[in-house]
């Protein structure tokens, strides 16, 4: 198994104000799988993503990635884990404002011993004409494409996407989804995507539905369709 989560618990606050966000999550993901995490606000899907990404820590349970237990890792090992295995895409892009498009992508490449070719990636992302612009000169879609470029240039084994189209319009969202699909197919990158858009489940290999911090549904999608055919 490529990624395994066992009995993950997570709560915030203390005593009377304690809120249990994840109540014992168990799930497994295969290498190269496209996983869509669905659920309403407060269901715990972003928290779960952050725990997988090593940004947040579980109170209880185990996360095993390619046989390595995350909880056993030191801070330095955790940094190396993120550096070597993970790519992250956020709803609000989080680009470094004073670096150009190309330089933002280079921040990812810098971390990898075996990065993708930056020029061809910029072509694939459709950013060739914008590569010397600063983020504030770009549209939302262009910024998100840059953030995808930055995440995948280091050739991560897992790409974590937190509502990557949450701030985008329909056409741009579709464009981004096509790009993520391409990444998944071209580089065989495992993708875990948090979304509240139900339509995206149709392009996933695996669909996990969360509610109140628990997995309500976890199934393989037998009728997978292409991103460009998605409608919502």
């Amino acid at each position, binding site marked *: 198994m490529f990624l395994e989560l066992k009995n993950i618990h997570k709560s915030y606050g203390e005593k009377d104000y304690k809120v249990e966000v994840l109540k014992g999550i168990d799930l497994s993901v295969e290498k190269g799988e496209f996983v869509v995490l669905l659920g309403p606000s407060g269901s715990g899907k*972003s928290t779960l993503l*952050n725990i997988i*990404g090593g*940004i*947040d820590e579980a109170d209880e349970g185990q996360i095993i990635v390619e046989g390595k237990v995350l909880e056993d890792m030191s801070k*330095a090992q955790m*940094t*190396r*884990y*993120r*550096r*070597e295995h*993970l790519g*992250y895409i*956020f709803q*609000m892009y*989080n*680009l*470094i*404002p*004073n*670096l*150009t498009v190309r*330089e933002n992508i*280079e*921040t*990812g*490449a*810098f*971390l990898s011993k075996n990065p993708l070719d930056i020029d061809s990636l910029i072509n694939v992302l459709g950013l060739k004409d914008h590569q*010397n*612009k*600063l983020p*504030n*000169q770009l549209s939302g879609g262009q910024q998100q494409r840059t953030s995808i470029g*930055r*995440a995948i240039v280091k050739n991560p084994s897992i790409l974590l996407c*937190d509502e990557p189209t949450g701030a985008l319009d329909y056409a741009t969202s579709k464009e981004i989804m096509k790009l993520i699909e391409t990444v998944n197919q071209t580089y065989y990158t495992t993708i875990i995507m948090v979304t509240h858009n139900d339509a995206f489940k149709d392009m996933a290999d695996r669909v996990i539905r969360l509610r109140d911090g628990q997995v309500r549904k976890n199934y393989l999608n037998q009728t997978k369709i292409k991103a460009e055919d998605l409608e919502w």
Partner: protein
Amino acid sequence: MKNPLNKRFIRELKEEAGKYLVIFILMAFSIALTAGYIVADGSMIKAYNDSFEKFNIEDGNFTAKKKLNLSQKNLIEGYGIKIYENFYATLKDGQKKTYRIFKNRSEVNRIDVLEGRLPESVNEIVLDRAFCDNNNLKIGDTIRISDNDYVLTGAVALSDYSTMFEDNSDMMFDAVHFTVGVVTDECFESFKNLSYNYAFKYNEAPANEIDEKNKADELSKKIGNEIVLESFTPRYLNRAINFTGEDMSSDKGMMEILFYMIIVIMGFVFAVTITNTIQKEMTVIGTLLASGYSRKELIIHYMTMPLIVTIISAIIGNILGYTLLKNYIVALYYRSYSLPSYTTIWSTEGFIKTTIIPILMMIVINFSILSYKLNMPIMNFLRRQTSSSNKKRAFPLSRRIPFIDRYRLRIFFKNIPSYLVMLIGILFANLLILFGLDFPYIIDQFEKEMISNPIAPYITMLNMPESMKRDNHKLETGIEMLEFYNSVQTENEDAEKISAYTLKSLPDPDIDYKGEQVTIYGIEKDSDYVKLDFSNHQVYVSSAYADKFNYEKGDHIVLKEEYEDKYYEFEIDGSYDYMGSLCIFMSREDLNKTFDMDKDTFVGYLSKTRIDDIDDKYIGTVVDQDALTKVSRQLKLSFGGMMDMVVVFAVVIYVVLIYILSKMMIDASAQSISMSKIMGYSNGEIASLYIMTTTIVFVLLLVGSLPLEIESLKYIFRIMMTSKMSGWFPLTVGTNIITKTIIIAISSYAVTSMFELIRVAKIPMDQALKNVE
């Protein structure tokens, strides 16, 4: 209902405790120091000014060769003055200290008993308080002076000696080796070899300074025609009386300039801070504006915290200023000057300058920036678009530059405003450090130079009566001269005759130069000591003189008789390597001719060994190593403590400024740093990008700005030396001083950077999830 936004203040104070704390420390410290200085200075100046009337300080004094008889006294008093006996005896102890002892003068130049009581019996003495402090003398101590034991019964301030100038022409006063004191009349009568000094007061006070000068000039001529005058010193030229007041006034001016420079730096810091806050809070501001808050309300809101900090700093600073710092500064003054007792007076001027003006400055700076920055459409705030961000393009950088270096360059471009503030801070702090470190170094160098390169190991100046130099006394003093010259011959084989004459340089109000005494030495043509070519009547200036006024060969110098309207012009043929004083060298023959003296006239000797075969009464002064280092000793005493404080102050400025600026730069990039952590950058790598960039910039600015700081220091030093002091110190900024400055600056930076490393490590990864940059 109270504005709910106000609840943010306490939270903001907690969150930004470090920032506000360092701003508070710098402001409170600066205000305390300046308020302390202004209050101490103001109180002391008042005590000093009041002392003229309170202790009836003389309008001038003169020394007669002999005690005046009644008819001479009546005649002189007929010139519109009243004269008072101001006789003194000059005593020495075994430690090369000179005591000028008076009777208790009840009419003029009265004394202020600061501690203890006046002497009541013959073996009792009171001495100047500063001298007692500097020599650890306590009331009740027995002091042996000129083979007599005296019990010290009090520490006093003689109103005509607030500064211990033994001789009015001394380059510097000496509160360690020279003092004044008072004994009982009975004791005083037992002294021999008295100096017949007379103090005088005008019957009609001069209307103004010009009138005072004219009156004094006229009086000196009239008295000089009647008696043999050894000296004539009107009050306005008496440095023992005036130096303190002049020095305190100029110190205050310097302190105020220093303070306003700090306030300007703080103004910049506040400007950068407030800009940073607005940047950080753009969406909040947008939302608040959209909800109906007015811009005015928001301006007041964002101005409140900086103003509260300024006001608290001002209050605490003033309290510290009026207590601790005032006492410290008074102690510094008391160490150098013999001031009467003082009462602390409230200074409205000080309050306005140290409190009202900084607060107003903060209001103006913050208000202007906030008004400008908040004057944007609401949508721009919500979209986080600053007025310039739409137009902002990336500065093109070649891809050949390694990625990390490009990243650092981008950080540099982003933080240019902060780095500019840093540059101003570096310039200012380094100037202070250089000044604080270099001043003692210059004094040391001067001392070494004095010891290693004197005109001669001993310069013995003969005690020549004033009348012998005056044309109108030539006949009268002929016999006296013959007798004098017979008595001042020496068998000392290495002695070489010199003649000398003292003139005064002309004042130059443009550079606040008051003029000073210039000694002209007449040297033997084949001198073993001053090896110069005088074959064509050449005139040379000392290198100190040349340095002070940038004189070059061919320049002309005009000097005048101190008390007469007689001018002399000299053309410079070169300079002679002597830093000890402003002087001119020519052949003895030429000097005697120039000043209309007999060609064989001489007034002293240069020698390798001490001349001991001339009667003491004919020896005026002996300039030896000890006399030459008097200036440096006093300067070290007067300024030592002050210079340490200047360096400490500069370090405080460094730490505070670097801390605030680095913190702001890191805070402004917190989102990017957080994202970098998520991507897998280690804390070390992030520090190497963000902190290293600032470090590189800091080191470059530090090293790059040094030449400018050194030049500024030279400029300030030249102004200080021409306006405040006689003589000249060569300004040398030693390599060791530059190295020390760099070490102090980098150490201050390194300490501050530690906080930044911790700050970078503490930025959480979920920061990137919360906000939008």
